[in-house]
């Protein structure tokens, strides 16, 4: 009997492909993206910007954070869609509506990956705030269309050779500096992981005596964040804590894990930290696992820190954990 080779190949793929976690993950995500809906955020904040606030942060979800620094408003890594990159249904909807943002001075994009840069969200922001500035690292310009916003490209400082500090520019009165990140540029897979298209960064943004650090997406580096911490007096650090398989480690490659985030927080010597980059997307395990591990670690370190130093204030008083859509107003020095 003549056996059709194509038929055998189809049978093998049918049997084994669903057993492959990667294939299963893609199929699962695609089905959810088409038919699913994210969990609703109830009582979304409608007035995130207030007159008498020095520093506040509203966690929209994943890596999107709206910050108020006195009279300036900054949004980092804007992604407001229910389905990220057309493929991944987020666990919770975005915790803020763009219509609720009354004004905006700068949008900072750390890199062009789908979960950090939505060209549609930026278009919606562009329609509402054409006078704002859109800041991005060199390399990301290839993945952005044209906008009315002032498009500002920064040279990065992603290596020891460059001193971990990149270019500084002042946009709408806010001093923005590109700082070290260990990650990739690109957007469509191969350009990130094989071509190594540049285009990732962290940011320091300073205004009126306030300094905020946003790590972007990054792995832990035991030198870079010490240098940044020595150079800047950081009030608030937005640090990713995932994704991670074993979140009790520094992390792997280009993603910092929960424990690594504490090391980074120590190195930066920041007053406060808000953990980000968890909770929205299912990679291999529950998207909230990094937070569960972080909370365990916070409970473990009471009189010392992850890097072994004596702490004047325990992590529990310095790390602010927000729910999607929740805002924290920092009681702050004048």
């Amino acid at each position, binding site marked *: 009997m003549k056996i059709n080779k194509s038929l055998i190949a189809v049978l093998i793929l049918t049997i084994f492909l669903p057993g492959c976690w990667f294939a299963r993950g893609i199929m699962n995500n695609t089905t959810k993206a088409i038919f699913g809906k994210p969990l609703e955020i109830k009582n979304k904040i409608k007035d995130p910007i207030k007159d008498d606030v020095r520093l506040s942060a509203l966690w929209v979800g994943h890596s999107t954070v709206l910050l108020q620094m006195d009279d300036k408003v900054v949004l980092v890594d804007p992604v407001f869609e229910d389905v990220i990159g*057309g493929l991944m249904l987020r666990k919770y909807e975005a915790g803020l509506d763009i219509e609720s943002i009354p004004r905006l001075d700068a949008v900072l994009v750390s890199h062009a990956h789908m979960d950090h840069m939505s060209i549609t969200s930026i278009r919606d922001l562009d329609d509402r705030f054409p006078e704002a500035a859109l800041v991005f690292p060199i390399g990301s310009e290839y*993945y952005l*269309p044209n906008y009315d916003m002032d*498009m500002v490209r920064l040279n990065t400082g*992603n290596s020891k050779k460059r001193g971990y500090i990149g270019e500084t520019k002042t946009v709408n009165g806010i001093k923005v500096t590109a700082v070290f990140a*260990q990650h990739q*540029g690109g957007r*469509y897979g191969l350009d990130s992981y*094989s071509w*190594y298209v540049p285009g990732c960064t962290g940011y320091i943004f300073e205004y009126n005596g306030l300094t905020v650090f946003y790590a972007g997406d990054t792995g832990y580096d035991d030198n870079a964040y010490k240098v940044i911490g020595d150079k800047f007096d950081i009030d608030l650090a937005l640090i990713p804590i995932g994704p991670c398989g074993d979140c009790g480690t520094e992390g792997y490659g280009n993603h910092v894990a929960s424990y690594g985030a504490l090391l980074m927080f120590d190195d930066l010597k920041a007053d406060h930290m808000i953990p980000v980059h968890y909770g929205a997307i299912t990679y291999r395990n529950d998207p909230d696992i990094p937070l569960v591990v972080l909370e365990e670690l916070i409970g473990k370190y009471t009189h010392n820190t992850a890097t072994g130093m004596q702490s004047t204030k325990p992590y529990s008083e310095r790390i602010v954990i927000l729910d999607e859509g929740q805002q924290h107003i920092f009681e702050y020095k004048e």
Partner: protein
Amino acid sequence: MRKTLFLIILTSIILNTSQAQDRTDETKKYVSWALLQLIPSPTLFQDQNEQNSRVQFGLRWHITPINISFNANKYVSPVQFFMINPVRRFTGSVELFVQPEWTTGGFQYSGLDRFGISTGSRVMLPLIYEGENLSMSIGGKFNYREDPSSDKDTYFGIETGLYFFYGLMGVQFNYNFDSKTNYNIGLYIKYF
């Protein structure tokens, strides 16, 4: 030996990762891009004569010698050659294309040659999420396919397409002004 090889590969990955944010690996970029262009897009061609009509399976390759974007930002050129950035393409652009085609079984009823080539131009327009989730094209083309039974080896056609998955995949429909192969419908698979 296997251990050494494994260590070499691992070291190379780690080194590459640590430099990932600083520079593009141009060699890998152009070699892998060129290899990816060899991936054909499956296409169905109509094959008919006065008595019979059927559908013939074939393959088509998509080459874009030039694309001009309507939506390029100030840091990049609106004009691109061969390697076309998806964002600049699907957010609105016009392009020239060349499509070599090959049918697996040949055109048995019409007698047309199994090899063909077409060239034309199309306009890309964004539909959903800035075109990243869905964009469309409309265009016209000029086809060359040898017809041993007559002197007429060329014919015109019009085409339209829908593109999804960041414009890297799509479906194209063609109507040709040649009664021997009026219709063809095919996938569009192209990485950059």
